[in-house]
């Protein structure tokens, strides 16, 4: 590794080794390369949901078209056990991808065991992406999907009192923003919010933002993502708390949260600050900061010790939240 003047927590040794191997090949992101970034292959087998994985887990999938923001058609997929009956816990999933890439099949793979073990039903939403559809499209599509899920709880086999929202990275930020919308519009009640290394703050100011110009999601990538979402509004007073939940000053009345991140990633400080603000507002929150984790370490290197610990902690929370 090259030496640097910026002090920062180093990557975990196992993660560092993998990053040194794949770092050169990871796609880079600038304002001009969003199209290429979308096309680039990622070595994140753990994220991708395949028919084989579904069959092994005994889970079925169906695709539906539902009304999104302003009534436009958007897609959702519903995953449930083949033998699902009655009303089980619900997981409303919002995928990651920096606000500019990814689709609804990015992420649910890690939650297949929860569907199988707790007979949960998972709905994952194809919200429209920036920059073609800037703020508020992503968070409003996500909210529209949540409303639809709650309204159709009966036919989905979901117990509306046991519905949680979940997302990673940009999906974590959109999940937090959707939970704020649900609170403020007196929309669907949520039993929990699972925010996996969430992207919450457009202001580009935290210490961790300044420390990580390296890794899988750099400060520069982060600026590109927020610029795509917010355009000239990024960093100004014109940004809503639903687009950038870190800006919310009143977090009272939000559902219990699970927040995790790595100590060696851009999102560390905004994620820790969000958990702290939730506690201060009297909201239950569980926070895990994994030593030496870069952004998405549990997905890129799931075999490493720190990723195993992170996945186990999340599974454990899910069992407490979704188990009967």
């Amino acid at each position, binding site marked *: 590794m090259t030496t640097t003047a910026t002090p920062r927590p180093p990557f975990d040794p*196992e993660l560092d080794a993998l990053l*040194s191997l794949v770092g*050169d090949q990871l796609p880079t992101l600038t304002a001009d390369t969003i199209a290429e970034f979308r096309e680039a*292959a990622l*070595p994140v087998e753990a994220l991708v949901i395949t028919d084989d994985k579904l069959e092994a887990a005994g889970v079925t999938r169906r695709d539906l078209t539902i009304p999104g923001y302003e009534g436009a058609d958007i897609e959702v997929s519903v995953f449930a056990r083949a033998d699902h009956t009655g009303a089980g816990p619900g997981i409303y999933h919002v995928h990651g991808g920096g606000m500019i890439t990814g689709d609804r099949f990015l992420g649910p793979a890690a939650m297949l065991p929860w569907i199988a073990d707790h007979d949960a039903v998972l709905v994952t939403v194809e919200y429209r992406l920036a920059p073609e559809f800037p703020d508020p499209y992503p968070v409003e599509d996500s909210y529209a999907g949540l409303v639809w899920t709650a309204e159709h709880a009966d036919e989905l086999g979901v117990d509306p009192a046991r519905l949680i929202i979940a997302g990673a990275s940009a999906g974590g930020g959109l999940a937090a923003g959707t939970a704020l919308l649900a609170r403020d519009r007196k929309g669907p009640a949520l039993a929990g919010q699972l925010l996996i290394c969430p992207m919450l703050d457009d202001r580009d100011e935290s210490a961790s933002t300044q420390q990580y110009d390296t890794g899988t999601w750099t400060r520069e990538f982060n600026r590109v993502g927020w610029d795509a979402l917010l355009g000239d509004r990024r960093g100004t007073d014109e940004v809503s708390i639903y687009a950038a939940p870190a800006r919310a000053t009143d977090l009272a009345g939000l559902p219990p949260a699970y927040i995790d991140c790595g100590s060696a990633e851009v999102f560390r400080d905004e994620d820790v600050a969000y958990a702290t603000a939730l506690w201060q507002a009297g909201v239950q929150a569980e926070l895990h900061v994994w030593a030496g984790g870069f952004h998405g370490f549990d997905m890129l290197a799931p*075999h490493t*010790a720190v990723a195993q610990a992170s996945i186990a902690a999340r599974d454990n929370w899910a069992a407490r939240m979704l188990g009967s």
Partner: protein
Amino acid sequence: MQELVGRLTALDPEASETLKVVAYFDALVASGVGLDGLLRAAAALSGTTAGAQRGSRVIRFDANGRRLGATDDVVPSPERSAGEVRVWLERDGALHANDEMVVERLALAAELLETRRGQDGGLDVALDQQRTVDERSAALSRLRIASHDRIRLIATDVAEPAPGATSTVLPTKYGLLRATVDLSGDLHAKTRVGKGIWARADHAPDSWDAATIAFRLTSDEDPVVDATDLGAMLLLAQAHDPDHPHDDVTRLAACDATQSTVLRALVESESIRSAAAKLGMHHSSVQARHESLTRQLGYDPRTPAGRARYVAAAMLLRLSGDAASAT
């Protein structure tokens, strides 16, 4: 679970799977990962359980990185010994293409860990530029070498057995290499050898640095390279940063195979005419290529100064490239 090695190669189609396996274990060793982490990597790379036994203690991890218990019905395939440790994969049925390679690199890395932990890292400390002269001298005395003794280090491939003298395996900027102390000057290895410069023992890191450069310059035609023979070119090689090469190196690297052949003939021949004869090309077309190469390189490779620039750039180019390609 899909084999990690396949995914890594899909990501970087120009690198072979062998290269990825070697580079991954090198990176794990350089990061200071322990035996558990090495086993998790081996399991993930191969998509099957990996295990190790030290004394009566058995450690196993599945392809997802989960720790497994010791059972009596473990069938190691393939397996290797690494000093006091035995390591293996638990491949059910026919071996996959990379299984032997994974276990070989796993064994090397495990042996390196043992060496470092076991003998207080005697030679490792003596060769570590970051340590003080006092620390290095103390490490040398444990090896029964006096600070003022003249020694040299030789570098060989880690996969080859140690040449029979005090030896260790070290991460270098050219990947993992075996370092062996040569006190007599008549140490010989069966395979490719990079010989360091002679130095006072308490300056052993200088000799080791030169040995790694010399090793990097070996080839099938030239299996033994002595850093002493590089003369002042050694200073150039030491200053060379493969990640930020000099423009002369970048321009030379941009030449295609034909251009490289013509260029070499131009530099090594007495005249354009004899270069043309050597290449089996017409005089005028070699003349034209000479002119275009001069423009492309930014210097005339047939002048004495141009020749020197070419020779220096060609050496540095051989030091560049993928760290593992020399093994």
